[in-house]
């Protein structure tokens, strides 16, 4: 109909939003810069080495893993996030081989073994962390205080041992012992709010997760602010519980996920053997994600009774 017309016949819609997988992943990496920078500032250049080693190992592992699966490897940025997140939840003193091994395990077993991006059930970074914790418990629980690197316990460790509560302002700014990227609630919050403002993260997950921990701890007579800001709750709530692949796809489901994870954190901290509980709370809820999705289907227009569940 037009001279030289080379028609591209594709189905509607013929326009697409600009958002892309790579763009989202890049935004998450940018959002993690404040937490990463605060970790390096507090714990020194070794922390930066851990981060670099972890990311490099994750990307190389994904390349090899996809090759072995016969799938096309694309640098979509998801491996970078896995490597970075794993590094941020490691103690700043770990030897360099640990993030290398951990990231490798996270990507190859936590992600590729399930079929690659979008297929894995559990958050790969947390799979890597759980693996390292089980394999080298001593190295994974060696803590130092910021700046001077003197051996010490984390605020939750102190609390668990009955040594009282670290002041909330120290927890908020991050001037305490802990994993590289978890200590400064402020730095995490900056990145988290950025992702929420960009609409890349649903506020429901962190709010319900952190809110549940706060409210339950308050009901149990514990200082809620201490428990919210101490440990890895902020990092987990904003950056791990919100991982698209391993968390529910519905809005209601995300609230259920957050409340469930919060409940688990409180149970582990108050009645379990560990002072922390964020890592396991998220991994356990990851396992419930398909079930949550099934029972939180939105109401379909024109269908009067909401039918729940499968068959």
């Amino acid at each position, binding site marked *: 109909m037009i001279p030289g017309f080379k028609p*591209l016949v594709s189905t509607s*819609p*013929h*326009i*697409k*939003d600009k958002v892309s997988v790579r763009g989202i992943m890049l935004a998450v990496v940018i959002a993690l810069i404040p937490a990463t920078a605060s970790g390096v500032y507090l714990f020194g250049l070794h922390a930066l080495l851990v981060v670099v080693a972890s990311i490099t190992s994750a990307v190389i592992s994904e390349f090899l893993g996809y090759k072995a699966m016969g799938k096309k490897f694309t640098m979509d940025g998801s491996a970078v996030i896995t490597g970075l997140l794993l590094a941020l939840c490691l103690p700043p003193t770990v030897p360099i081989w640990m993030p290398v091994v951990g990231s490798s395990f996270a990507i190859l077993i936590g992600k590729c073994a399930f079929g690659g991006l979008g297929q894995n059930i559990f958050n790969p970074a947390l799979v890597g962390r759980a693996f390292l914790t089980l394999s080298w418990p001593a190295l994974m629980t060696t803590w130092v205080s910021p700046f001077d690197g003197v051996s010490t316990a984390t605020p939750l460790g102190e609390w668990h041992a009955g040594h009282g509560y670290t002041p909330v302002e120290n927890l908020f700014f991050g001037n305490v012992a802990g994993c590289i990227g978890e200590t400064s609630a402020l730095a995490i919050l900056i990145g988290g709010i950025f992702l929420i403002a960009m609409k890349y993260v649903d506020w429901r997950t962190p709010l319900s997760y952190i809110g549940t921990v706060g409210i339950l701890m308050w009901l149990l007579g514990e200082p809620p602010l201490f428990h919210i800001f101490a440990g890895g709750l902020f990092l987990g709530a904003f950056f791990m519980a919100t991982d*698209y692949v391993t968390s529910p796809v519905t809005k209601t489901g995300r609230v259920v996920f957050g409340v469930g994870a919060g409940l688990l954190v409180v149970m582990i901290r108050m009645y379990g053997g560990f002072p922390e509980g964020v890592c396991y709370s998220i991994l356990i809820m990851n396992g419930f994600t398909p079930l949550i999705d099934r029972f939180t289907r939105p109401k*379909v227009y*024109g269908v009067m009774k909401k039918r729940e569940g499968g068959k």
Partner: protein
Amino acid sequence: MLMKRGFRGGVHPLPNKLTSDKKIEKAKLPSRVVIPLRQHIGAPCDPVVEKGAKVKVGQKIGDSPAAVSAPVHSTISGTVSEISTQLLPTGDRVPAIVIEADDGDEWIETKGLDPEKASREEMISKIRECGLVGMGGAGFPTHVKLNPPKEKRIDTLIINGAECEPYITADHRLMLEEGEKIIEGAKIIAKILGVDNILIGIEDNKPDAIDNMDRLGGESVRVVPLKTRYPQGDERHLIKAILGREVPAGGLPFDVGVVVQNVGTTKAIYEAVTQGIPLVERVVTITGDVKESKNLLVRIGTLFSSLIQECGGPVGNTRKVIAGGPMMGFAQYVDVPVVKTTNCILVFSEERVREEEESPCIRCGRCIEVCPMGLMPTMLVKFTRAKKPEMCLEYNIMSCDECGCCAYVCPSKIPIVHVIREGKKAVRRLKK
């Protein structure tokens, strides 16, 4: 101040309404028209003229005894040169009558009715004879829509002036230039249906149309401003936004006491009833990568190519010619005629067409968030590809209107609508 209303989900693509300020112009008379014998939902017409017959503008050339069908008319004066199978803009192949124009533009004699005196049946029969169908896109025969089953009590007439698809301004211009006819047409429809409550839904990105219709409508026809959000113009969402009622799945607006008519159809109803003018022309927005975007009053059967030429021809290397809007329109690969439901011809050059490779679903949930029907498109894709039509059915795949919001927002560029269409086909096979 009227409250603005909306519906669940939806998206907000760039409006790109390049022709909002362009007055409707009469297109050049075509030298040849292709009139498909089915331009509507329902049975195709049989030709009532033979090859070689002389025809005038408005002369009936095809009709059908079927209840759900609408006759077609010649849109130029000339000679029937062939009756053959032709391609519709929707991709279907249907029999069509091809007419070569003579020098004149001779019309048949038309006779209207006085809507004050005419009976309901007389008016419905006039509307049928004039070949009216829904001009907003679906093409449901108007006389069928205006004659709902007795047991359905209709209390509200909604005139659809939402025009939520980007680029299209045909209805917008009609509301500015032919507002009186739309209001009178709405009153005729209300009389036929026996309803008092007449509402016009218009998106708030057309304040001039809202003002104009509000002024002309007076007490009897009330304007309801709607939030600008695609797909507000889908009648299910229009009814939900304006009245808070949900059309049951598999049902029709009748079932909740509503009849919805597009503004273009409403104007055509006015002309058919009061003047007896058959549906031979309509407003088409020709836009995108053409030299000068226009709103043209086009004789049905005019080929897309001649209209694109009338707008100065394409700009850049054309990759897509779309019949309809960018969200739900059909990409063409050969020249096709304008039919009763063609509201837009959209030309995209290669700069506007991005071929993107699909990547795995990352379960971001955006498709669920924007689905105005409350479906879970990501699950429907998963079940369709896993060849599980029974699960597709369980997840209400048949409620999908294919509005395209899900595919629009998908960061993995999964052709969700395309996959869902496949899933629906599998479900239909399952039911057989």
